[in-house]
């Protein structure tokens, strides 16, 4: 079966303006079945020039999986024609991964951590919590339909 994913990768021997060594861009339809392959593609290129420990690979893969699931399920409402854009900037000191959906956005401040005893049995709401705890920095654009996750190399 031909993959519907189209990956664009730019690499530079010397850092590009802004210190970018490589940039990975990917657009995927809103289909949760594609998440695994998308994560594999992006992670492979992010770690192509970074001999990171296994635990760091796991952190990026978990965070990206959760960000894509949120974008597809809640941002785009699983409407397959709506796309999710992934852009990863590999810099000498960090990897920044942006995930943007076509939804109206949301206020991340309203999503609380589901780890209080009362919330433990709530089946939803752990995705953003995992992202916040596994990445070094997490930011949203003002509408809230684009997340930027940073993983520092040191």
């Amino acid at each position, binding site marked *: 079966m031909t993959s519907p994913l189209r990956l664009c990768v730019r690499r530079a021997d010397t850092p590009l303006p802004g210190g970018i060594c490589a940039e990975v861009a990917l657009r995927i339809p809103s289909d949760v079945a594609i998440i695994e392959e998308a994560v594999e593609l992006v992670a492979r290129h992010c770690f192509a020039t970074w001999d990171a420990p296994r635990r760091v690979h796991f952190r990026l893969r978990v965070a990206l999986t959760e960000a894509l699931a949120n974008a597809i399920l809640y941002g785009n409402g699983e409407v397959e024609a709506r796309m999710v854009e992934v852009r990863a900037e590999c810099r000498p000191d960090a990897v920044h991964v942006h995930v943007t959906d076509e939804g109206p956005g949301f206020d991340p401040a309203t999503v609380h951590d589901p780890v209080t005893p009362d919330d*433990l049995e709530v089946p939803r709401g752990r995705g953003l919590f*995992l992202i916040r705890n596994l990445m070094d920095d997490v930011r949203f654009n003002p509408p809230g339909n684009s997340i930027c996750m940073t993983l520092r190399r040191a």
Partner: protein
Amino acid sequence: MAFTASRHPSGVLVVEVEGQLIVGNRQELKATIQQALDHGERKLLIDFAKTGYIDSSGLGALVSISKKVREEGGDLRLSGLNEDLRSLFELTKLDTLFAISDDAAQALAGF
């Protein structure tokens, strides 16, 4: 990825999760457990020894399953989580909600 259910001689239904437990297949696991409950199974072990990854939807499905099993008067245990997966349970404090054993043999001995 697949779920394999088999009955241990001790009377425990062991469900093995191969591959991943994620948003795309979590309903299948919930259906497998529901079917087991409908058939009268009350001692249930979900073994993750062959599982590479569980996402937040998978964790949510386990929370729902835990609640359902308890409502039916059953006993649910988990086993075989690798170091990374166990860290997700600890991070989300779900390690306090589930009875988690290092491997299936240890879990079976605990029923």
